């Protein structure tokens, strides 16, 4: 790769690589995102490589491994461009047929295209698959198009055009104006206006300033940021250069959690490429602006996603939050004014400047502009990543894009906002998803996790789960959070094991109120949300646990009884081998029995029985 010295040089280089590429050339894009990778996308890509070589197609057909294509449930996904044929559930064994039929024969392999689970109708092209209709991809737009390890790919689709425009044609004030007018709000949790944050930071005097990208993505059940960091790392870098220029920072940090090794690798590589190419470093393209980026890795602490704890962690300290104010924009990294934004916030910036603030502000609702990426997971047919305009309803997301609930079961709740969020029940399915509406029903937008639950989920167990997660992750610095979580967890453990008392409910409500008002950081302040929303919308379930010692969803194991249906049991003995306490026995080749005195209710017999012979009550 050459070192680019000037704007003209960049234009010329972009022209050159564009000229070398033929938009009609056959491309095979294998999804290697967070959903397809564990399903074997590397092996699929490898199979294409070998098969294409065997058939003499190398050089004629371009093969790329890309970021997430969205519909992870049907991975491994393979997209053929320019035809836009979308293949699903591709295994290495399918590859020879795809090469033969599609790449050589120009025909469609019908058995690998999308099929509607209800109507049986098929959709060959990406645009015909219901999952993609109704989406508005801005942040995810390039993910199924570019090779994230190729800077050239990013340049071909117009990458670093915004940076150029900003460094040469706009003043920092104009950039901040544009971001402010766009109405962009932070995508990492609180939804603070990004332009206002930048302006504040620009106005504060400081001998040095910093920008930080928050890639800690600690919310369990959320993987939007991982997908963007792995699938389009240069968009984040470009956004940060723009932000750095706007506030007057010359150094940026990207903080990535170490649980995402591929994201660390891709970002490190992208930063090195940009530096080598001359898009980071001193006097970028002779604009007079210096800017560079360092990668900082998290070490496995949820609380480090909180901005002041994250800053402490980059400084080499333990990740304990600090009271705000002062806000990081006033006094942040190494005591200097610092803008910290979420991955998706940064990735929105280039397109906002490029397309214009008004274009962005025309999307979404009055107070929530643009689009939002959600990780749609749990009890929903089409698990994956969706990006929709703000204001799209929960029903549209879960039932139209998401294809509804598997197994014909009933929708029960959707959990948004991670451990600080809440569980939203059926009566709010028509709620438009934006910052304010979610807050009105007791949840939050958060970073974009959307976990769908059906009737097999117990809402008391869900509350207990989040409290136990937060109890583990609380840094312990302040008493209301530390002790409040301990007490809540004890109570919820009691309730889910049949020891609940009537007065527990009001006691929990009291603890929640104290934690919300007296905790130091967002973790403690919002920790009550999962408890409060489940108490509010699913109180009957709490009462069933407390009064009747029953778990209606059959989840809380101490309240269940496992028995074997002698009619259904085939005496395969799988459960006998799995039972950790030897509670299952019986004569050879006859139905087995569970000794209730020995059984510890671990539920594993139920999981391994292939004949549905284990009954739960």
């Amino acid at each position: 790769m050459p070192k680019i010295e000037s704007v003209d040089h960049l234009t010329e280089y972009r022209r050159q690589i564009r000229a070398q590429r033929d938009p009609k050339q056959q491309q095979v894009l294998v999804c290697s995102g967070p959903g397809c990778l564990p399903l074997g996308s590397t092996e699929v890509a490898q199979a294409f490589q070998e098969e294409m070589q065997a058939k003499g197609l190398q050089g004629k057909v371009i093969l790329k491994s890309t970021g997430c294509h969205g519909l992870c449930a049907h991975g491994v996904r393979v997209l053929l461009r320019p035809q836009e044929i979308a293949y699903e559930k591709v295994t290495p064994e399918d590859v020879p047929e795809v090469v033969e039929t599609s790449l050589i024969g120009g025909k469609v392999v019908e058995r690998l295209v999308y099929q509607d689970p209800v109507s049986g109708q098929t959709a060959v092209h990406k645009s015909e698959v219901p999952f993609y209709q109704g989406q508005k991809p801005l942040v995810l737009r390039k993910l199924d198009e570019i090779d994230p390890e190729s800077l050239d790919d990013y340049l071909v689709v117009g990458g670093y055009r915004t940076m150029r425009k900003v460094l040469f044609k706009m003043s920092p004030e104009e950039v901040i104006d544009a971001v402010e007018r766009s109405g962009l709000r932070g995508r990492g949790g609180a939804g603070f206006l990004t332009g206002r944050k930048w302006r504040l930071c620009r106005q504060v005097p400081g001998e040095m300033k910093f920008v930080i990208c928050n890639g800690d993505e600690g919310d369990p059940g959320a993987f939007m940021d991982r997908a963007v960091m792995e699938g389009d790392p240069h968009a984040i870098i470009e956004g940060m250069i723009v932000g750095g220029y706007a506030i007057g920072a010359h150094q940026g940090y990207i903080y990535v959690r170490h649980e995402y090794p591929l994201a660390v690798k891709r970002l490190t590589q992208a930063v090195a490429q940009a530096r080598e190419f001359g898009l980071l470093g001193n006097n970028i393209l002779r604009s007079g602006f210096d800017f560079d980026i360092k990668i900082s890795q998290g070490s496995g602490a949820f609380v480090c996603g909180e901005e002041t704890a994250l800053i402490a962690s980059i400084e080499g300290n333990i990740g304990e939050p600090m009271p705000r104010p002062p806000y990081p924009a006033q006094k942040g990294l190494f005591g200097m004014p610092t803008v910290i934004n979420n991955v998706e916030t940064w990735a929105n910036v280039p397109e906002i400047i490029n397309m214009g603030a008004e274009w962005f502000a025309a999307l979404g609702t009055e107070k929530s502009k643009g689009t939002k990426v959600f990780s749609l997971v749990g009890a929903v047919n089409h698990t994956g990543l969706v990006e929709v305009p703000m204001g799209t309803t929960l029903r549209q997301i879960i039932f139209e894009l998401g294809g509804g609930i598997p197994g014909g079961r009933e929708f029960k709740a959707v959990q948004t906002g991670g451990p600080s969020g809440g569980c939203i029940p059926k009566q709010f399915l028509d709620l438009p998803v934006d910052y304010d509406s979610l807050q009105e029903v007791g949840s939050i937008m958060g970073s974009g996790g959307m976990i769908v639950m059906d009737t097999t989920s117990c809402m008391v167990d869900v509350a207990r789960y989040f409290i136990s997660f937060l109890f583990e992750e609380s840094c312990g610095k302040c008493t209301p959070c530390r002790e409040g979580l301990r007490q809540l967890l004890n109570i919820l453990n009691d309730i889910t094991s049949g020891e609940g008392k009537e007065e527990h409910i009001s006691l929990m409500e009291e603890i929640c109120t104290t934690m919300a008002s007296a905790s130091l950081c967002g973790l403690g302040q919002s920790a009550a949300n999962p408890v409060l929303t489940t108490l509010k919308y699913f109180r009957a379930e709490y009462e069933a646990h407390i009064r009747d010692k029953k778990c209606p969803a059959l989840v809380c194991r101490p309240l269940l009884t496992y028995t074997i249906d002698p009619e259904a049991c085939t005496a395969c003995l799988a459960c006998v081998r799995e039972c950790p306490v030897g509670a299952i026995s019986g004569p050879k080749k006859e139905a087995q029995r569970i000794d209730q005195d020995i059984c510890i209710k671990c539920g594993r017999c139920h999981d391994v029985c292939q004949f549905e012979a284990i009954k739960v009550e």
Partner: protein
Amino acid sequence: MMDVERLETILTQYEGYPQDLIPILQDIQDQYHYLPKDELKVVAQRLNVPLTKVYSVATFYKMFSLVPKGRHELRVCLGTTCHLKGGQRLLESVSSHLGIEPGYTTADMQFSLETVGCLGSCAQAPVMMVDDKYYARMTIDKVTKVLKLYKE
């Protein structure tokens, strides 16, 4: 005995500021699979930070371990989606097959078992990882098969 050279290769990549502490500990953890005592003393000296601070950092963050880890690191996801799809029972099954509780290492130093908040592959829950390989849509009857791949 401390391998001076091995540690030096790590230390020379840094300038020696206090803020290098965490990245250095991460490198040591990655290479040694734990943080040996003698190495920590050298790190403290070199960065000019008190040893107590090194220990407070090393114990605060979940990725660091002060005791040696096994040859293979098993991580079972207990994130929300995995929890709803039976992650806890998966963990119990793995734990009883290995004969260790989460957080511990088998006596033969082959396996360490950990839990994790979310691995970011929630679309395929429940998920577990062995070293850097993902196992998606895990079920309890697959546990024996997966573990066998790593047993000597």
